[in-house]
């Protein structure tokens, strides 16, 4: 896992939740392209947090080899659906699995940056304590954070220890009566489980915005 700060000439800014496409071109002309969520608040320039996937074509380069001063081909910002601008008035529920936390972190950072008082909660599922991204910063954002560690928990762990399900959501999500605005990001399996659980709790499908991450990097 690594966060890269990019300086893009002419960059017009982004919205919290958007992503960019990064394209690499090998010396023989072979091209590989992947999408990466923007981790930074709109006021803080363009930063990507990239998870290294061992069999990936792009992420091993970005995590292991990219150095300060290297040039990348970037397309974006992309997305007008999975975005939160901070002007919305509904309570916000962020539900993230693994590296799906990256785009919703941009929203939480944006909320802190603009001094928003909109209630925001994050339900975040990781495999283990070591896999938790932004571990220290999560406690400083002024939002409620509920974590679950699905494979391995450290001694004395007081959070949840299972995959996100209806019961876990019932204990942590805003009541449906508050008509919250929801952002769910993670693998397809994670997103479907979270969205289904929220619908069972009486959430309206129109409140829920989802973004599925692929298994290629």
């Amino acid at each position: 896992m690594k966060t890269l700060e990019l300086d893009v000439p002419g960059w017009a800014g982004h919205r919290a939740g958007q992503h960019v496409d990064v394209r690499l071109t090998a010396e023989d002309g072979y091209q590989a392209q992947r999408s990466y969520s923007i981790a930074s608040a709109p006021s803080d320039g363009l930063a990507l947090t990239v998870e290294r996937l061992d069999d990936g074509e792009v992420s091993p380069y970005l995590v292991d080899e990219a150095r300060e001063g290297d040039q990348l081909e970037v397309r974006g910002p992309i997305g007008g659906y999975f975005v939160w601008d901070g002007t919305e008035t509904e309570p916000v529920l962020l539900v993230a699995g693994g590296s799906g936390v990256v785009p919703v972190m941009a929203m939480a950072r944006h909320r802190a940056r603009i001094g928003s008082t909109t209630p925001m909660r994050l339900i975040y599922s990781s495999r283990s304590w070591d896999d938790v991204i932004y571990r220290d910063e999560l406690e400083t954002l002024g939002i409620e954070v509920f974590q679950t560690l699905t494979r391995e928990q450290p001694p004395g762990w007081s959070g949840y220890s299972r995959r996100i399900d209806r019961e876990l959501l019932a204990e942590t999500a805003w009541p449906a009566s508050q008509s919250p605005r929801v952002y769910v990001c993670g693998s397809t399996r994670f997103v479907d489980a979270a969205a289904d659980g929220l619908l069972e709790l009486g959430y309206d499908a129109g409140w829920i915005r989802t973004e599925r991450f692929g298994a290629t990097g």
Partner: protein
Amino acid sequence: MTGIAELKLDGNAIGGLMLELFGVELTATPCVCAGCGAREEMARLDVYTGAGIVVRCCHCEAVMIRIVQGRGRTWLDLSGAASLELG
């Protein structure tokens, strides 16, 4: 083995390609399925990527859009989409 359901992405994944093809952001664009008439933002549609890209209705699973790129060209089949409502 990875099941087909786990290869499913959504319309967010083709936002960059659509931006390149159409010159505008399309993930929030309402799209109407020619099969069942459902109207959903592109980000909510099911997307499968392989040799090409297949976009399916998230309600009836009918193919709405197919995109194939190769030899410097793009083939775009919108016959399963009754409309795209550009803002």
